C-alpha cells in the first residue's frame, strides 16, 4: 500500500515537472525560431544587429531551465551574462551548448510534456466515459478512440482504456519527466574544465553560509549554557554559602535555604539536559530520525500521532534541528495548549525536510511571550529554513517548519 502511495506521489511530482518543463519548452521553441530567423537574415547582413539579442534570449530561456532543474535535482550553476562581442560569444562553450540545447529541447521537451499531460487527461476522460457515453453521438468517442461506440459494453471498453491510461500515467510520468530533463542535464551544466571557477564561487558561498550557521549554533549553545545552567549553579553556590552561614545561627532557616539550593540544582540539571539534547541527541545516532521521534511521541503526555516519511537520511545537524523542533513543540503543546491530540508529520521532499505539528488545543500561541517558539524560529532560520505558525484564538495551532536537508 505504501508502495502504491509512493508511486502515486512520485507521478504527481513528475506531472508537476512535466507541466513546468512544457513551459520552458515553449519558451525554447520561441527562442529557437527567433535564433533561426536571425541566422537566416545574418546571411544578408541585417541579422548581425539582432544576433546579440537572440543569444541573450537563448541564455534567458536556458537560465529558466537551469533554475527549474536545480529545484529538484543537482543544482546547475548559471554562467552569468553572455560575453560581449558576437565573435567571442559564438566561441563561448556555454553559448554553443545552449544553442544545441534549444534545438533539442524544443522537440524533446514539447513532446514529453504533451504526452505527459495528455495521459492523465485521457485517463479521466476515458475512465468516466461509461457514465456519459449516451450524451454524445456514437462516432464522437473521446480521446484516442476512433471507432464507433454502440452500447454500454463498448463504452466500458473505453473505460478500461482510461484505466490503462491512468496506469500508464502513474508508471511512465517519472520516466517522461526524466527524459524531459535529459537535454538540460546533458547540455546546460558548465562543460568540463570551465566548470571549476563557478564551482569554486558556489562552494565559497555555501561554505561561508555553513560556517555562519556553525557560529550561530555555537553561540546558541554558549548562551543556553551560560544563561541557564551556569547561572543555576552559581545560585546553588550562593544558597549553599548562605546555608552554611545560617547553620550556626538558625538551623531551621538553614534547612529552608538548603531546600532552595536543591531546587536550583535540579533546575540546573534539567537545563543541562535540554542543552545536551539540543546539541545532538544520542538517540538520533542510534535509531535515526524516525526512531528518535517515535521516542518523543511515545513519551508525550498528550496523545501523539506520528507519521514519518523520510527514506534518505539528512545531514546530522538538520536531523538534530528537526528533533529539537518537535521536542520543543511537544513541550509547548503539553504546557500551554490544553490539547487532547497532537499530530506530527515529517517528510522529505525535493531536498527539504518538512515538519508539521498540529494540535487541537485552544490556540492563541504567542511568540513574543517568551515560550520556546522564539528558540525554534532562531534555530530554524540559522539553517536557512522557514517556520510558520498559525494559532488563532480557540485553536487549532499548527506549526510548519521547512529545513534544507544539506545532503
Amino acid at each position: 500500500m505504501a508502495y502504491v502511495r509512493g508511486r502515486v506521489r512520485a507521478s504527481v511530482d513528475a506531472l508537476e515537472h512535466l507541466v513546468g518543463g512544457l513551459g520552458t519548452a515553449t519558451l525554447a521553441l520561441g527562442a529557437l525560431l527567433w535564433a533561426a530567423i536571425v541566422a537566416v537574415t545574418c546571411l544578408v547582413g541585417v541579422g548581425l544587429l539582432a544576433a546579440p539579442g537572440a543569444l541573450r534570449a537563448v541564455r534567458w530561456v536556458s537560465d529558466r531551465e537551469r533554475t527549474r532543474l536545480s529545484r529538484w535535482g543537482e543544482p546547475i550553476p548559471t554562467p552569468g551574462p553572455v560575453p560581449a562581442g558576437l565573435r567571442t560569444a559564438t566561441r563561448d562553450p556555454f553559448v554553443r551548448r545552449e544553442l544545441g540545447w534549444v534545438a533539442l529541447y524544443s522537440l524533446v521537451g514539447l513532446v514529453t510534456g504533451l504526452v505527459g499531460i495528455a495521459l492523465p487527461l485521457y485517463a479521466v476522460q476515458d475512465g468516466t466515459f461509461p457514465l456519459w457515453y449516451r450524451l454524445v453521438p456514437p462516432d464522437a468517442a473521446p480521446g484516442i478512440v476512433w471507432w464507433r461506440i454502440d452500447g454500454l459494453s463498448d463504452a466500458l471498453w473505453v473505460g478500461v482504456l482510461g484505466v490503462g491510461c491512468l496506469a500508464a500515467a502513474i508508471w511512465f510520468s517519472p520516466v517522461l519527466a526524466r527524459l524531459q530533463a535529459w537535454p538540460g542535464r546533458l547540455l546546460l551544466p558548465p562543460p568540463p574544465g570551465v566548470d571549476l571557477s563557478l564551482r569554486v564561487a558556489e562552494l565559497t558561498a555555501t561554505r561561508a553560509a555553513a560556517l555562519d550557521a556553525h557560529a550561530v549554533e555555537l553561540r546558541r549553545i554558549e548562551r543556553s549554557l551560560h544563561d541557564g545552567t551556569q547561572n543555576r549553579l552559581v545560585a546553588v553556590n550562593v544558597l549553599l554559602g548562605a546555608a552554611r552561614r545560617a547553620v550556626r545561627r538558625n538551623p531551621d532557616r538553614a534547612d529552608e535555604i538548603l531546600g532552595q539550593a536543591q531546587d536550583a540544582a535540579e533546575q540546573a540539571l534539567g537545563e543541562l539536559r535540554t542543552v545536551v539534547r539540543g546539541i545532538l541527541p544520542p538517540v538520533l545516532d542510534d535509531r535515526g530520525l524516525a526512531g528518535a521521534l517515535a521516542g518523543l511521541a511515545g513519551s508525550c503526555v498528550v496523545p501523539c500521532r506520528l507519521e514519518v516519511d523520510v527514506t534518505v537520511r539528512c545531514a546530522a545537524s538538520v536531523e538534530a534541528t528537526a528533533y529539537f523542533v518537535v521536542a520543543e513543540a511537544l513541550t509547548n503543546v503539553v504546557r500551554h495548549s490544553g490539547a487532547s491530540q497532537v499530530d506530527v508529520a515529517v517528510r522529505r521532499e525535493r531536498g527539504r525536510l518538512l515538519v508539521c505539528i498540529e494540535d487541537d488545543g485552544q490556540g492563541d500561541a504567542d511568540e513574543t511571550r517568551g515560550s520556546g517558539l522564539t528558540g525554534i524560529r532562531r534555530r530554524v532560520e540559522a539553517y536557512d529554513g522557514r517556520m510558520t505558525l498559525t494559532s488563532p484564538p480557540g485553536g487549532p495551532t499548527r506549526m510548519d517548519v521547512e529545513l534544507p536537508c544539506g545532503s
Partner: protein
Amino acid sequence: MRIVIAEDDPLLREGLALLLRAEDLDVVATAGTPGEFLVAVDEHAPDVAIVDVRMPPTHTDEGIVAAVEARRRRPGLAVLVLSAYVEQAFATDLFSVGAVGLGYLLKERVGRVEEFLAALHRVADGGSVIDPEVVAQLLARNRRTDTALSELSPREREVLGLMAEGLGNSAIAERLFVTDGAVHKHIRSIFAKLQLPPDDRADRRVTAVLRYLDGDRR
C-alpha cells in the same frame, strides 16, 4: 550600607538578596535590567551596587555600561561587578578610569561568604577588588614576553598579584605571614624593577599595576 542588586537571572538575584539580608545588610532594591537598575540608583541612593556583566537586551557588556553610567550619576557609588567568566578586557576597561570603590569578581566567589563580604566591605570603603583569576591571567600572559616581569623574584610576583587584587600593605602581609616592613620592601623593589612611580595607596596601585599588565606603556 545600602545595596542595590542588578542581576537578570531571578533565582540568582533572589539568592544574593537572601544571602545579604541574612547578614543584616540593607538590600534596598533589586533590578533585572540596566534600565531598572539606573532607576533604582536614582531612587534609593545606594552606597554599593552589585552588578552582573551580562544583562538584557544583548547579554554582552550591558552591566559594565550601566555601572559606568550609575557612577557618573552618583559619584562615589561603589560598584562590585560580578561576572560568570573572566574577561580581562572588561576588567581593564572598568579600572581604566580609576579603581576607587570598584570591584570585579567571578560569580562563584559569592559562595565563599566571608571572603565575598570582605570584598563587598572593601569596595564600599573605597577600596578595590580584582578577582585573583583575572590577575593570574594577566600575569601569565605577560610572563612569557615581559623581561622586567621575569626579573621579579617568586615572592615579589606573589606580592604583585595581591597588589593587583586590591589588597593593602597590611592585608598582603597577613596573607603571606610576613611583617608590614617586609611587604613594603618588596613593593619598592617591584616598582623599581617595573619602572613604575611608587605609590602607597592601594587603589592607585591597582590602576598602575593593571595598566602595566595590560601593556599600556608599550
